[in-house]
């Protein structure tokens, strides 16, 4: 029988510190490792730390399951090295982690998918001169992401949260010589700050309500708080909504989704790791982790569900009209994250994590596949100049096909199971409208992914003879991860994540529902979406032209991305920049602040000019004044 041992206290910290160690070594000794341009030593080191981390995470998971099956009936462990990070009065933040089934799932996703993407990067970044910098950032990201999902209290989670934001910024702007890349990095950082402000305020409210920021304390005590009905603005509702603002920023939900499509300026492995599989799901993890708290507030749940459903639909419609292969996937990610929030919002927190987990496989696969396509096309990302690549890069094509079918929800691939459960959750919770939206979005998902597939791999090559001559299959370091992720995308759905994760949340038991017709309808919507794309893009292109002219107003809205960027741009330019310029700078700063400082200086100098003749420089005048002072003092003492 297994007992809790020192090993269980130390092992999780080892998982964390391996990638951090990799980062430190690469950051300090990178130039020494990099002997010449083609040397891949830095990449091997980065891969080794993450793979080792994955091994330790698997070991930790196995031990946790042993402990849970053991006589102590342990539900979780809180590794703690015995010292505090913050200790101020009654407020203390121990440097502790939380290892339970939820964090184990997240840990395995982060290190598992992360390791595959690290290996893929070996091939993808082989010709880049700054491999050391790239791999050190990737390792640092892995560390912060692990800290985020393993942190035992909200402040520790927050450190990871900010850390992944930093790495996201660094990696989006990795090719900083391109203006668009550094601008996109900045945009991601600034938009995320808006969300992070909400997260901090939410933590303050939670501390106010619970007197603790420990995740286990919150989960234990949330049930004892009074539930808050719809439109009742109690502390729980406000805290949940503020935390959700943070989640919308990190997980690219409306209205803070604008940074994610631009984030595609980064290298493709970064898009796969950070902006598809792991970091952007941090918001979903946060909401699922605090599920017991959200469960107490009907308003917060409704807001989460509606935001998720609307985001899923809007991003899906935008994806339909994009021509850049990575931007289609970016909007698809936003849409799938919307699905996850919909699941969380209707109370199916376990299902949200389930979709997070399956999505990590197939979206990482799709991004890496698109990277392989871009690699084959020597950097071309516009789908209008692709086509017919099926025969030329068969490995990429077949793995991409698996990913497409998985995200479209075709059984028995991974996406089918999780999407089906989300639809089921929406249906049984009674949100019929949201269910309808989700079903329609599922159809859209299949349609835009099939469109991407057909435009890229089918038909005739449209990039000209020169580009056609250069098309080549990627090296094995890139194809290997693709094949493994394809296997994952096919089989991951058979692991019933909700059953594993839901006991962690300590929510009241609900009866299991089954709706016999739902899997058939969900599958049908996926097939229908693919068929529509087939007809419009392969079978009958004439029909597409006439349909496009009929739907022109709607398509224009989609192509303009619902004008979110334009509105923000106008707001920033008019209100923020304009207001700073005319009011804050010219009036407040130059007028009030500079005016008062200069005014004081001028007054002092004026008075000094008036008083300076008093200083004659003759000793006897000073002596006379001393005498006068002494006489005055003595007179005062004698006659007062």
């Amino acid at each position: 029988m297994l007992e809790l041992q020192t090993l269980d206290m130390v092992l999780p910290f080892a998982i964390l510190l391996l990638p951090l160690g990799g980062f430190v070594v690469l950051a300090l000794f990178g130039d020494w490792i990099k002997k010449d341009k083609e040397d891949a030593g830095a990449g091997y080191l980065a891969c080794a730390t993450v793979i080792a981390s994955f091994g330790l995470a698997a070991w930790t998971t196995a031990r946790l399951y042993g402990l849970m099956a053991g006589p102590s009936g342990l539900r979780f462990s809180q590794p703690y090295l015995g010292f505090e990070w913050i200790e101020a009065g009654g407020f203390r933040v121990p440097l502790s982690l939380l290892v339970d089934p939820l964090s184990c799932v997240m840990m395995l996703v982060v290190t598992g998918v992360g390791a595959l993407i690290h290996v893929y990067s070996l091939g993808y970044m082989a010709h880049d001169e700054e491999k050391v910098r790239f791999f050190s950032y990737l390792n640092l990201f892995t560390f912060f992401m692990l800290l985020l999902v393993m942190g035992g209290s909200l402040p520790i989670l927050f450190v990871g949260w900010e850390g992944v934001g930093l790495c996201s910024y660094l990696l989006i702007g990795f090719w900083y010589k391109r203006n668009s890349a550094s601008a996109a990095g900045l945009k991601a950082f600034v938009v995320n700050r808006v969300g992070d402000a909400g997260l901090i305020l939410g933590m303050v409210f939670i501390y106010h309500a619970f007197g603790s920021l420990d995740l286990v304390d919150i989960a234990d005590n949330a049930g004892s708080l009074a539930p808050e009905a719809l439109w009742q603005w109690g502390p729980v509702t406000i805290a949940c909504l503020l935390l959700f603002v943070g989640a919308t920023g990190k997980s690219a939900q409306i209205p803070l989704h604008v940074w994610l499509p631009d984030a595609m300026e980064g290298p493709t492995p970064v898009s796969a790791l950070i902006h598809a599989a792991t970091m952007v799901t941090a918001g979903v993890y946060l909401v699922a982790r605090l599920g017991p708290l959200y469960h107490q507030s009907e308003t917060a749940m409704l807001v989460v569900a509606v935001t998720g459903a609307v985001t899923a639909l809007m991003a899906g419609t935008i994806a339909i009209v994009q021509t850049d292969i990575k931007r289609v996937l970016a909007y698809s990610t936003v849409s799938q994250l919307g699905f996850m929030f919909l699941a969380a919002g209707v109370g199916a927190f376990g299902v949200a994590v389930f979709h997070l987990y399956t999505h990590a496989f197939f979206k990482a696969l799709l991004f890496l596949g698109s990277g392989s396509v871009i690699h084959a096309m020597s950097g071309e990302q516009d789908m209008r100049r692709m086509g017919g690549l099926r025969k030329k890069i068969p490995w990429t094509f077949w793995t991409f096909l698996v990913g497409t079918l998985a995200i479209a929800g075709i059984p028995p691939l991974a996406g089918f199971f999780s999407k089906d459960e989300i639809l089921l959750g929406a249906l049984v919770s009674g949100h019929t409208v949201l269910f309808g939206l989700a079903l329609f979005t599922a159809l859209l998902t299949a349609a835009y992914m099939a469109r991407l597939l057909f435009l890229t791999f089918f038909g005739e090559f449209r990039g000209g003879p020169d580009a056609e001559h250069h098309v080549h299959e990627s090296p094995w370091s890139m194809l290997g991860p693709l094949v493994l992720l394809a296997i994952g995308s096919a089989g991951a759905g058979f692991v019933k994540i909700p059953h594993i994760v839901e006991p962690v949340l300590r929510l009241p038991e609900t009866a299991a529902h089954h709706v016999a017709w739902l899997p058939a309808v969900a599958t049908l919507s996926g097939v229908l979406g693919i068929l529509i794309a087939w007809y419009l893009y392969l079978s009958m292109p004439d029909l597409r032209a006439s349909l496009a002219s009929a739907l022109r107003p709607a398509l224009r809205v989609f192509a303009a991305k619902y004008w979110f960027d334009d509105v923000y741009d106008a707001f920033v330019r008019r209100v923020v920049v304009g207001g700073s310029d005319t009011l804050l700078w010219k009036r407040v700063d130059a007028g009030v602040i500079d005016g008062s400082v200069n005014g004081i200086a001028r007054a002092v100098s004026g008075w000094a000019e008036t008083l300076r003749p008093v200083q004659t420089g003759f000793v006897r005048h000073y002596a006379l004044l001393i005498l006068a002072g002494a006489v005055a003092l003595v007179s005062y003492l004698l006659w007062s």
Partner: protein
Amino acid sequence: MEHPAFVHHAVLLSLVLFGLGTLGVFLRRNVITVLMCVELMLNGVNLAFVAFSRAAGTLDGQVLVFFVMVVAAAEAAVGLAIVIALHRTKDTLDVDAFDLMKG
């Protein structure tokens, strides 16, 4: 207890000494003379201390005189050092020649 007339005369004398010293400080232009006048003022004060001490029958005033004498000795040493420095820089000891503090 001494006769009150004695105290009266002693204080009168000390006042005269102090007044002479003060006048000297203000009117004389040679730095050394000014220093000597300061000594005169201090000794006038000393005389008053001693007289009041005799009148009151306590030793407090006489003890204070010793302190004043020590301070006066130190002041004379520092003062004469300054006088030498002044003479070296300006070749004169006229107090009105030193007006660097003029505003």
